[in-house]
């Protein structure tokens, strides 16, 4: 019952999406109505014309022929109008849904994006939208024309001869029952088929992504055997599913033939008894031949409808996810000194597992703060909080005396230049990637940033240089080169403060030293937060925070911490005694 309620609600929301297309929808429905009615008239006119031939009534015959031509023309024109209007509605609605979903995505908090499989979100935006627009809207018009055709056919048949029409009405349920019986049988087979296909897909994914390991270990033959096993299991289900689902048409066609025969027989008997003309028989036969077709379509539409509603529910669930609060009204932030203050900040990703309990620091403008500690200790979390990818559960983070939650997010983020360990390239040219933060930068500025990061010769080695199109999974660009590109990006953007999360982890130490100078110049006089594994790189920081299990356990300069001989000193010496 609740499911029904939910479906009803989903359906009403879809209708609300259709509101801007009201005029088109009205056009589509009226065109559908006119073309169905007009096409229903055609067999009746044909029958009358045949009788006119038999009666030898020339004038009537000519008039009927003209009406037939007019009916054919009208049907075609309105069918086209209906198709065109439907296309318009379907494509506009899917564009609208996708646009909304994408805008919504830009406003969803990172906690949602981090905790949901990206493939699933993508498939909602792309596949489910298609399913809704195709399945639901086309299904809707098909249902509409189907019902009109069935009702119209029945009315016409009753008008021509009620006894024959009664025969048709009696046989009808047979067709519906067989169709739904087959649909029920095939559903479970389709389910098994898609399960087997899922197993196969994940095997393929794994083996192709790991292909070099497969060949390194000479596993080709053994994997081929496993693949063939999976493949033949899939083929078994696929054969059955394909076969059973293809039975619907022959079986309903058979039922239809029986209806047709029943009409022919009862019509012939009526004709011999003199209650019906040959022309009337011809037209009623032609009604009978098209009568069961809409039933097939409607049973197909019902399945499509269910799928479409399920897809719509998935889309709406996504659209209903809470967005980050709108900060349009908040003042935008502009950086003056770069003093960062954290007071009693607490945070956790999961309420059951507190991560940061009570974190306080005071960073003077221009200070370089290093954050070190074992994996999982909360270093990256501090950066998530500074950038406002996540907001603290308790406490306040303030920059230049302004609480970070009292200003617009985007303006705050623009003050930071951020380089992460997991670098990311946007699909586009090298130039576009470097100029991501400053699309208006000149070529010279882009080149200067690249050269400061020692990328010039690498870029020159690419076939199209700065215009080479790269993407995040491009081959031939090493992790280190990607990281250098991300650094060049930040150098060009020239931000007021810096966040470097293992920013040089994939770069060899020598290149790192070479670009260090450029880095130092960038950091000069600017507040910077540095997370690093290699402790040698952060020795000169003004303040080192040693984080463990979300707490700052030690803090001070390198010298002070070494002298104290605590956790940091232990970590540091373990890196240099190998």
């Amino acid at each position, binding site marked *: 019952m609740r499911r029904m309620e939910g479906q009803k609600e989903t359906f009403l929301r879809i209708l609300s999406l259709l509101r801007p297309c009201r005029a088109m929808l009205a056009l589509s429905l009226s065109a559908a109505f006119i073309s169905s009615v007009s096409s229903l008239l055609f067999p009746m006119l044909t029958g009358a014309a045949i009788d006119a031939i*038999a009666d030898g009534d020339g004038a009537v015959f000519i008039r009927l*022929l003209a009406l037939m031509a007019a009916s054919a023309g009208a049907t075609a024109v309105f069918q086209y109008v209906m198709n065109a209007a439907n296309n318009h509605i379907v494509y506009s609605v899917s564009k609208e849904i996708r646009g909304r979903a994408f805008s919504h995505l830009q406003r969803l908090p990172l906690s949602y994006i981090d905790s949901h499989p990206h493939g699933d979100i993508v498939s909602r935006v792309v596949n489910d939208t298609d399913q809704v627009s195709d399945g639901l809207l086309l299904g809707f018009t098909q249902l509409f024309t189907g019902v009109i055709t069935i009702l119209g056919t029945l009315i016409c048949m009753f008008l021509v001869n009620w006894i024959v029409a009664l025969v048709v009405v009696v046989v009808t349920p047979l067709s519906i029952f067989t169709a739904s019986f087959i649909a029920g049988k095939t559903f479970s087979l389709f389910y098994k088929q898609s399960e087997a296909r899922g197993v196969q897909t994940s095997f393929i994914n794994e083996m192709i992504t790991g292909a070099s390991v497969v060949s390194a270990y000479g596993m080709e033959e053994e994997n081929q055997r496993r693949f063939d096993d999976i493949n033949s299991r899939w083929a078994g289900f696929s054969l059955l599913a394909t076969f059973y689902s293809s039975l619907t048409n022959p079986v309903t066609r058979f039922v239809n033939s029986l209806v047709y025969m029943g009409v*022919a027989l009862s019509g012939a008997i009526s004709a011999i008894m003199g209650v019906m003309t040959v022309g009337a028989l011809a037209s009623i036969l032609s009604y009978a031949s098209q009568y069961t077709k809409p039933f097939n379509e409607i049973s197909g539409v019902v399945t499509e409808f269910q799928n479409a509603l399920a897809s719509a529910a998935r889309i709406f669930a996504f659209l209903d996810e809470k967005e980050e609060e709108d900060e349009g009204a908040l003042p935008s932030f502009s950086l003056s000194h770069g003093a960062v203050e954290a007071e009693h900040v607490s945070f956790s990703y999961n309420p059951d597992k507190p991560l940061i309990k009570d974190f306080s620091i005071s960073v003077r403008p221009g200070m370089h703060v290093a954050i070190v500690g074992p994996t999982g200790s909360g270093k990256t979390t501090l950066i998530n909080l500074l950038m406002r990818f996540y907001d603290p559960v308790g406490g306040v983070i303030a920059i230049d005396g302004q609480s970070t939650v009292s200003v617009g997010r985007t303006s705050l983020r623009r003050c930071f230049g951020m380089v992460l360990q997991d670098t990311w390239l946007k699909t586009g040219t090298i130039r576009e990637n470097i100029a991501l933060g400053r699309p208006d930068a000149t070529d010279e500025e882009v080149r200067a940033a690249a050269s400061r990061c020692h990328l010039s010769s690498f870029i020159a080695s690419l*076939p199209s240089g700065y215009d080479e199109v790269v993407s995040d999974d491009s081959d031939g660009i090493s992790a280190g080169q990607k990281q250098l590109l991300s650094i060049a990006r930040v150098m060009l953007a020239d931000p007021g403060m810096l966040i470097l999360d293992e920013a040089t982890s994939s770069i060899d130490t020598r290149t790192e030293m070479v670009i260090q100078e450029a880095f130092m110049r960038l950091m000069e006089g600017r507040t910077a937060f540095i997370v690093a594994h290699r402790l040698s790189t952060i020795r000169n920081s003004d303040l080192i925070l040693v984080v463990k299990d979300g707490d700052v356990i030690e803090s001070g300069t390198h010298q002070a911490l070494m002298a104290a001989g605590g956790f940091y000193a232990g970590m540091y010496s373990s890196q240099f005694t190998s």
Partner: protein
Amino acid sequence: MQQRLASFIRGYRKEAVLAPLFKLFEALLELAVPLAVASLIDDGIARGDMHHVLMMALLMVVLAMLGLAASVTAQYFAARAATGFAEKMKSALYRHIVSLSASDRDRIGNPALITRLTNDSNLVQNGINMFLRLFMRSPFVVFGAAVMAFTVDSHLAAVFALVIPVLSIVVFLIMRYTVPMYRRVQGALDKVLSRTRENLSGVRVLRAFGKEGSEEEAFGSDLARLQELQLSSGRISALMNPLTYVIINLAVVVLMDYGHRRYGLGLIETGAIVALVNYMSQILAELIKLANLIITISRAIASGRRIQAIFDTEPSMVDAPDAAEEGTDPDEAVRFEDASLTYRSGGEPSLSHISFSIRRGERIGIIGGTGSGKTSLASLIPRFYDASSGTVSVDGLDVRRWKMEALRRRIGYVQQKAVLFKGTIRDNILWGDRNADDDAVCAALKAAEAYDFVMERKGGLDSMVEEGGKNLSGGQRQRLSIARALLRRPSILILDDSSSALDYATEARLRHNLGAMAGMTVITVSQRAGSLMTMDRIIVLDGGKTVDIGSHEELLARCPLYQEIYQSQFGGAV
């Protein structure tokens, strides 16, 4: 060796021929129905012959039953042929993809290869099924109806002779416009998909730079382009049904008019006219089915072409007919002679003119900066790539003259990014040697410093590894992949920066364990000078060239680049 897609129907030829034949038989039966109706009218009703009416009705029932039987048989054969085809094609395609070399795969791209084996294969299967069931039937019904019309009345049938070419031209023109259009729509949809995916994967960077607005704009214009393409292809494809409808029904009008005149001359009966009108409606019904099929078939053709393109890609590395299983000089483990490697055509070489030789049992380190060619060098040894010029030999024999499988059996190669597969830990380790027992597996795990954490897991060797090993930490994955390589007791072990996620103490223990394995040549690629100090010799690479080769002490004394690397890591410790 090259395979044509069509060849996979072999073995299902019987089904592929019988399915359309039964379909044609069914169509033939359907074509007989209007004749029965005509006879029912002209011979039954007109003469008041009730017996004849009953006979004709019975005939129609028989026709319907035979039709059902024929059609079910046809569907079965079509399903068998299509699934059988898909099964054989997928198996061969998988084999072919695995036989491609790493550079072939890089060029085509893994996502493309996966799509060929999944979505594209499904579309082809669906297309064949539909083709066998309907595509043969439709032209047959159209032309069959015309032929039958001639048997009914050859004069009136002239209308059919006129209408069919017109219809064929209309269908052909619409298809010619919409099929390529459809491909462009698909391309625009792919764009929408990849931008959404990218927006998610780059969410932190995009938000850090405040790019939400410009991303929305770009997405909006992607959507607008998609809609524009959809609408313009829709405008044409929406013509299909109305046009065929109006042409056929106008033909009915002409037929009636002509029939009227011939009836006046006493040359035709009304039943015959009814039959001809019925044949026209059968043509219409068939064409509507055909129109719905066009998209399915054209998608299948597009997918088939893409699959064929993969089959047409000849593996760039195959065993020579006289490939050897043994080397000629087991004491010379690896030798590079003037070897160069270029990945991207038109790009600069990643390795140029590398020459050195490694004796059996030597411990070799390879060090160098980002993009210096360390991994490229290591991957030439098991012949993942072929040198663009020069030669690489193992055990004294050029790797190109080795049987690839025999060559790789001697080598344990551990990649930078550890790749594990879904299955138990034991399954994963056994990749190294399928015949090893648990004792050997445990010994390998111990040597790789993985034994303890494996035993701490519930189930030990039987505990499950998820797809890609995502339920293990980076360090655990690396140690398991080292154990996998050690299990095969390789004569050459290559560690490509494969202990980067291990802490210093574990890495030191691992190095100690490896040191105890005599007779095994070990090549270690690393960025850390500290990891390579104990090696017999270290190869220093820079920009794809060897800068120097020597022991740690030698290099520290004479190689400025090595000194720099060392100092950058150990600071003032020199």
